[in-house]
């Protein structure tokens, strides 16, 4: 096996606030359907959030749900859906050669907050602190729950990478396949973040929590009147295989991951650095052997914060500003910010463009911020373009972590 094995996507499982399958999700993205709704969180009361509504009991017993975490449940749903979608003969699969790599923005806050609220009822007597706290909050929990549920005995871990984590899950899966460490990677990202009040409260204190009378209009990247982030939950997991393995079993191939990169800003805890983001996307292009104008769709990270969106636009403009073929969109305008799942869901919602040639829009842009003008920014309505060959997802997160993934249409 060569060190440059080609790695392809052969199965997709997802839950988003506006869809529990790729077909539902894509339909929502093309029909302008938001997944943001009114929500209530501990101590704060009314907020807005992207809430998922998948069938938790499709792959888990009630007891497993009670024992585990929301992130674990989301990961289990997505991993099982991806496997089913892939058509892999699971009973004939060597499960010691399967790896589970799940990106997370954060993990453990939900359970810690729940336990503190619970012992408050007992005057903070820690003998009422649950013995489930540690297995629920260890950082590998969401990936570990997948292995328990599916009987996978290969490696599993999470990749903590703030809001760049979804892409990092894919990258980790690809790297492990190329290294020959596994033969099948279940890779992606998940978010349970709407179940922790702390993330809402922290964004609010930062002046970065979105508000709007109409929840579906609250997430508005690039709009002049954007006022912050809508926190969401969600998940997306791929089955990734080496191309030769996928071809051998006649798999359906959604696309090939041909480029990726990850770097660090080393400049600020929260404010993105356009130069480093641009370098990250440039490195992904270089790895794929592409020039900027080869990319047909850039799916942006923009979260609808005042400065963050502008910084990303600067990064994109510096690299793609003169491109004719590039079209640009944003998925958070529909589903809010799905944190550890964001990059994974956002890339995935664009993959059907390889078949239908349509770029889903960025919705909720009533007045484009002049500082966010980009070439071929697809606003409010889907746009049909010529053949889509390359899609780039850009994701970044706190502490200055950037990730970019490029997927190529697979032509047999």
């Amino acid at each position, binding site marked *: 096996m060569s060190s440059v094995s080609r790695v392809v996507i052969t199965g997709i499982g997802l839950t988003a606030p506006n869809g529990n399958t790729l077909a539902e999700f894509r339909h929502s993205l093309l029909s302008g359907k938001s997944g943001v709704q009114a929500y209530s969180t501990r101590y704060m009361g009314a907020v807005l959030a992207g809430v998922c509504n998948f069938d938790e009991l499709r792959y888990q017993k009630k*007891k497993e749900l*009670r*024992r585990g975490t929301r992130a674990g449940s989301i990961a289990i749903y997505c991993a099982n859906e991806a496997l089913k979608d892939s058509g892999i003969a699971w009973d004939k699969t060597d499960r010691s050669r399967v790896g589970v790599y799940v990106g997370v923005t954060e993990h453990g806050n939900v359970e810690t907050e729940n336990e503190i609220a619970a012992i408050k009822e*007992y005057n903070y007597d820690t003998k*009422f602190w649950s*013995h489930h706290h540690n297995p629920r909050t260890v950082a590998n929990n969401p990936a570990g729950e997948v292995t328990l549920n599916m009987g996978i005995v290969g490696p599993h871990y999470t990749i903590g990478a703030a809001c760049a984590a979804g892409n990092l899950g894919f990258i980790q899966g690809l790297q492990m396949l190329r290294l020959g460490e596994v033969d099948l990677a279940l890779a992606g990202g998940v978010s349970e973040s709407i179940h922790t009040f702390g993330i809402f409260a922290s964004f609010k204190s930062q002046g970065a929590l979105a508000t709007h009378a109409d929840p579906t209009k609250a997430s508005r990247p690039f709009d002049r009147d954007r006022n912050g982030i809508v926190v969401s939950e969600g998940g997306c997991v791929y089955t990734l295989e080496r191309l030769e393995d996928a071809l051998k079993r006649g798999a359906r191939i959604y696309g090939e991951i041909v480029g990726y990169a990850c770097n660090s800003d080393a400049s600020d805890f929260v404010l993105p650095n356009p130069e480093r983001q641009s370098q990250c996307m440039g490195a992904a292009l270089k790895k794929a052997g592409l020039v900027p104008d080869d990319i047909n769709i850039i799916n942006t990270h923009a979260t609808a914060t005042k400065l963050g969106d502008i910084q990303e636009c600067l990064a994109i403009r510096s690299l793609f500003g003169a491109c004719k073929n590039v079209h640009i969109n944003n998925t958070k305008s529909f589903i809010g910010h799905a944190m550890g799942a964001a990059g994974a869901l956002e890339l995935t919602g664009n993959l059907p463009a390889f078949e239908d040639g349509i770029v889903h829009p960025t919705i909720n842009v009533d007045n484009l911020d002049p500082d966010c003008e980009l070439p071929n920014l697809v606003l409010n309505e889907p746009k049909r373009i010529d053949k889509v060959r390359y899609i780039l997802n850009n994701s970044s997160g706190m502490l200055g972590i950037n990730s970019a993934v490029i997927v190529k249409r697979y032509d047999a």
Partner: protein
Amino acid sequence: MTQVQIRQAILDIIADIAPDEDTTAIKDDVRLREQMDLDSMDFLDIVMELRKRYNVEVPEADYMQLASLASSVKYLEPMLKDK
């Protein structure tokens, strides 16, 4: 609490921690683990729920007393009779 009430209290706890099980079919004299899918973390849940709901402390040395429904009722009766 009477023996009948204690038995029901234990069944209510089991129903919460093992929601997939049919608690109406539990045999009183057979070890719980032989009748349903319960592991050590579940038994710790039973201990925790007894603590939370009835302020009853079951020391680790006595965990074996909770092996069956009948042994649990017998063990807990002195602690719960005045509750």
